[in-house]
């Protein structure tokens, strides 16, 4: 009964989404306030209904209702509760439902936190959001119904793929979806602004917090997914330039570019047309990613052609929304007034350069991802575009970008002084060169790692020296400096932390070139050297888990004769699916990690083991956390919240010059 009610709620949500799309839009055209006000309750109710439907599906998974096809295929009565809950989104239907849930949540958030917006802009925004909701709800109802029943019901389910039975799956998809579905808000804002024809700095103030919100979630989501792959897949790889990963990276790069151009638009009324374009682009790339992942086109172009129902539906949604938005853009963008002027050497100029380089990266990832599909569809020829390609073409763009980031931070708005900016980065340059010498002397090869690590150190120091300089300038002493530091706008901290975080991630990536591995066969009592550590295999045993059995090894990590940690790499066997998975044994020592994974066991009692020492590897993800923290600082900045919160006082308060 609950399940059918959930299904019904989903149908109701679809009807409401249609109403939300049509009525406020008509109201905005007719200037009818009552019709425009329909947007808010429909958006809220749509969210509640989708949430109910989602809850109903979760309920079916939790109570193991095996009369549902979705539960049979993805659950098992002995599965731990957390994986019964997270397993809801571990399959196509459930994950699309989560997608729509986040989409309707975005609509509800706009409805709740947009009272400061002009009524028309708000009505149009929610109308576009409603149209998006209607399209995807229809997709679920027609092609991916998660509530399909089967009779007679089997007495047991087929279980969730063991690799997905992991805390990583419980966190990664919701964060990722908050991120790239979150860009729908900015997309709707942009479409609404184009429909209304009014685009100004106030628009950027409304749009920027939402962009930040989506960007923070996406940053964390990608980092989480990458760490999950790192510890789950058993050899320490964390990024494979797989189309599925690129699908989340493309909107992230576009979103990063958008954050920066929106800053220019808000401060200086410049780059309006470009900012609107990026707002459309970020979510368009999210849609493209959804299409790539959900249509099956990645598995095989031919599989897609032979069973096209879902793929064609998403493709139609994609073409409608991206095409519609771009058509609107082409129609209206020419009429937008030119904004504030600036010299090429200025904060604005630096941000434009940032956008040029980021867009180039984004275009490269998009083309690299789509090229093999297009080539195969057109000529039938199959090629692979993998990590070596992306590394070769992106590193020459990314490293200069990293070099430029702190310089942009140091330039003034409108007209900057390049030599003064470079002079302020003296310390960063000196430390960067020192790092180059130190890494070169300590590690030597590979040169790329040495160079990238030096750039990374410079980037971290350069990003933070902006804070230090602002605090110390003309300050009498440490107390005054501290007071100045605390008095700085939060968005200054935001920029500094986000850039420094990027530097930390870069340092972690560079250090992967200095990893050490030892692939060997061990018996109990044997030891293996890996980097500065000696790994001793102390014990091998077996134990049962909640829904698996596990054979594990206890390994002592020794340094200078002292045991500093013990790790327990294991191999698990899940009887429900007769599937095995390896559990890496990982310990963090300083910023590096020792990582061990078990291979095949031999008749003589020995076992294959892969043991790695990965220096500084945790920085890859710590950097992402710091980036997200920077985003949070910016989001908390009072000046940015004006668009979100009810305007407390009359229009923008005068701000200290920055």
């Amino acid at each position, binding site marked *: 009964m609950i399940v059918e009610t959930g299904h019904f709620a989903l149908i109701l949500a679809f009807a409401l989404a249609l109403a939300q799309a049509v009525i406020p839009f008509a109201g905005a055209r007719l200037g009818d306030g009552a019709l425009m006000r329909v947007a808010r309750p429909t958006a809220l109710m749509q969210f509640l209904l989708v949430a109910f439907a989602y809850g109903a599906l979760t309920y079916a998974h939790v109570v193991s209702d095996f009369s549902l096809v979705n539960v049979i295929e993805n659950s098992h009565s002995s599965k731990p509760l957390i994986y019964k809950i997270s397993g809801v989104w571990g399959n196509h239907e459930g*994950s699309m439902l989560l997608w729509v849930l986040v989409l309707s949540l975005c609509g509800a958030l706009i409805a709740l936190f947009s009272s400061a917006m002009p009524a028309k802009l708000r009505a149009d925004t929610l109308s576009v959001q409603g149209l998006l909701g209607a399209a995807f709800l229809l997709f679920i109802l027609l092609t991916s119904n998660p509530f399909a029943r089967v009779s007679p019901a089997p007495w047991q389910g087929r279980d969730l*793929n063991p*690799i*997905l039975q992991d805390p990583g*799956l419980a966190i*990664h998809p919701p964060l*990722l*979806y908050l991120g790239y579905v979150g860009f729908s808000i900015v997309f709707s804002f942009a479409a609404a602004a184009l429909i209304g024809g009014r685009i100004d700095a106030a628009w950027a103030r409304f749009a920027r917090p939402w962009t930040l919100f989506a960007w923070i979630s996406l940053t964390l989501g990608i980092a989480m997914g990458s760490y*999950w*792959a790192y510890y*789950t*897949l058993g*050899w320490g*790889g964390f990024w*494979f*330039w*797989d189309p*599925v*990963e690129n*699908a*989340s990276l493309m909107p992230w790069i576009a979103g990063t570019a958008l954050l920066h151009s929106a800053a220019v638009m808000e401060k200086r009324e410049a780059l309006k047309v470009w900012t609107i374009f990026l707002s459309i682009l970020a979510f368009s790339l999210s849609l493209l*990613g959804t299409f790539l*992942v959900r249509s099956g086109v*990645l598995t095989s172009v031919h599989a897609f052609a032979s069973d096209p129902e879902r793929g064609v539906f998403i493709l139609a949604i994609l073409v409608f929304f991206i095409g519609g938005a771009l058509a609107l853009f082409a129609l209206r963008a020419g009429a937008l007034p*030119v904004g504030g*002027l600036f010299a*090429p050497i200025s904060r604005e100029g630096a941000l434009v350069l940032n956008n*040029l380089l980021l*867009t*180039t*990266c984004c*275009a*490269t990832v998009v*083309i*690299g991802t789509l*090229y093999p599909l297009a080539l195969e569809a057109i000529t039938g*020829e*199959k*090629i*692979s*575009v*993998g*990590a*070596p*390609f992306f590394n*070769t*073409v992106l590193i020459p*763009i990314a490293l200069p970008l990293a070099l430029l980031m702190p310089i942009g931070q140091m330039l003034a708005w409108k007209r900057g002084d390049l030599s003064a900016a470079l002079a302020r980065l003296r310390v960063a340059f000196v430390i960067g060169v020192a790092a180059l010498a130190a890494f070169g002397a300590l590690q030597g090869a590979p040169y790329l790692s040495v160079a990238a690590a030096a750039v990374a150190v410079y980037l971290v120091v350069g990003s933070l020296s902006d804070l230090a300089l602002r605090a110390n300038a003309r300050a009498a002493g440490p107390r005054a400096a501290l007071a100045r530091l605390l008095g700085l706008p939060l968005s200054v901290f935001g920029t500094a932390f986000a850039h420094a975080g990027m530097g930390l991630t870069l340092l972690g990536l560079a250090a992967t070139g200095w990893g050490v591995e030892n*692939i060997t*066969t061990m018996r109990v009592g044997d030891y293996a050297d890996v980097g500065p550590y000696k790994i001793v295999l102390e014990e091998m045993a077996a134990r049962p888990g909640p829904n698996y059995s596990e054979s594990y090894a206890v390994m002592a990590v020794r340094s200078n004769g002292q045991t500093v940690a013990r790790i327990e790499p294991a*191999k698990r066997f899940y009887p429900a699916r007769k*599937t*095995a998975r*390896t559990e890496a044994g990982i310990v963090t020592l300083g910023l590096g990690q020792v990582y061990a*994974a*078990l*291979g*095949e066991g031999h008749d003589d009692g020995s076992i*294959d083991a*892969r043991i790695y020492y990965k220096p500084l590897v945790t920085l890859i993800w710590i950097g992402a956390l710091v980036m997200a923290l920077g985003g949070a600082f910016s989001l908390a900045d009072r000046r940015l919240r004006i668009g979100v919160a009810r305007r407390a006082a009359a229009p923008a308060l005068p701000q200290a010059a920055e």
Partner: protein
Amino acid sequence: MKRALKILALAAALLAPLGAQAVEPGEKLADPAQEARARAIATELRCLVCQNQSIDDSDAPLAKDLRMLLREQIRKGASDKEARDYIVARYGDFVLLRPPFKPETLLLWGAPLIALAGGALALWAAYRRRRVAAAPAALSEAERAKLRALGVEGPDEG
């Protein structure tokens, strides 16, 4: 979720032997220099049944076969290029994670340059257009008189 799907695909390839690992100890070549070369080549060869994974990373049985094939060539004294060509001759360009330069991949390899050059050109054009459009008009004599009346020195002409 996207990664989940990928992992599903991987899992399909992984189902076979219990806990098999990429590069097993038994596969390694005796000569460390040869082994290092084999590893370097392997990271650029695709495990054909996986999604964008190199044979060096993959646990799939096919990846293991390819690693053995590659090492056999290296052990026989093949150069890096010969060993790679040997695999490509059997599995086609699809096996190369770094697509070869050829007419069909021109746009792929050229993409970053085209994007960068196109973007830079568009920026330059926009900048010039804007400078022309937004150059402030000189003050008229009446405006100057008004300024003088207010006690403000008129800006220099230019």
